[in-house]
């Protein structure tokens, strides 16, 4: 249940971020070279604020699942043991520290995005 949920969340969040990226990039292509007035008119509209807040939340979730998958794939006693035998004993601690690090970074990036666009 949880595995397939994470699988679908990862895919649907990817589709949302793809659509969001196409929207922003097409604005940047149409308005090239970028001027301050058109850029702030774009970033001050309510669509931008709502869709960017959603994109911030969705990209943090997408990144969490992706980075967590990488951690459980590569920071294990088997894969770290290939680097050094003594290293492999600390695999769970290393993976835990890594997970805490990117979670804290992700949450702070999310908070700063919201503070930046809504102020």
């Amino acid at each position, binding site marked *: 249940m949880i595995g397939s949920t994470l699988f679908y969340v990862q*895919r649907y969040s990817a*589709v949302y971020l793809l659509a969001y990226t196409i929207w922003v990039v097409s604005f940047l292509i149409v308005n090239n070279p970028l001027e301050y007035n058109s*850029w702030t008119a774009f970033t*001050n509209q309510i669509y931008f604020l709502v869709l960017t807040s959603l994109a911030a939340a969705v990209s943090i979730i997408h990144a969490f699942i*992706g980075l967590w998958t990488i951690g459980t794939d590569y920071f294990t006693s088997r894969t770290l043991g290939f680097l050094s035998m003594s290293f492999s004993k600390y695999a769970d601690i290393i993976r835990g520290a890594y997970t805490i690090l990117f979670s804290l*970074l992700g949450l702070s990036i999310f908070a700063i*995005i919201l503070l*930046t666009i809504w102020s």
Partner: protein
Amino acid sequence: MSTNHNKIRPVYINLFQIRLPASAISSITHRLAGIYIFFITLPLSLYLLYFSTKSYNDFMVLKDYINNSIFLSTFVAFSFLVFAYHILTGVRHLLQDLHIGESLSASRLSSYLVFCVWFLLSAFVFSRLLT
């Protein structure tokens, strides 16, 4: 319990002894690109968004700052090209999740296609940047 274990079976996985096919290279670089995006491109875009919308002065300063430094413009271009690469390989994975191009030959072909599209895109971006 069986005790007939193969004594020389590998206990740890030496990733460098595995020769990866093109589809696996596109998969592992998709992951590496994802790490780069989270730790570099995402904070960078946040920085750019913050200063480009702060005030007209900050916008112009940022623009000059990036335009006048070949190091900075290369760094920004590279960071967004990594994002483009993650999108290209990601779309390929999404199509495969929909059972499109799942066969070995199609998967190999689409990996090379993704590499080519990305190299052309990079060449285009850097040719614009350096002229």
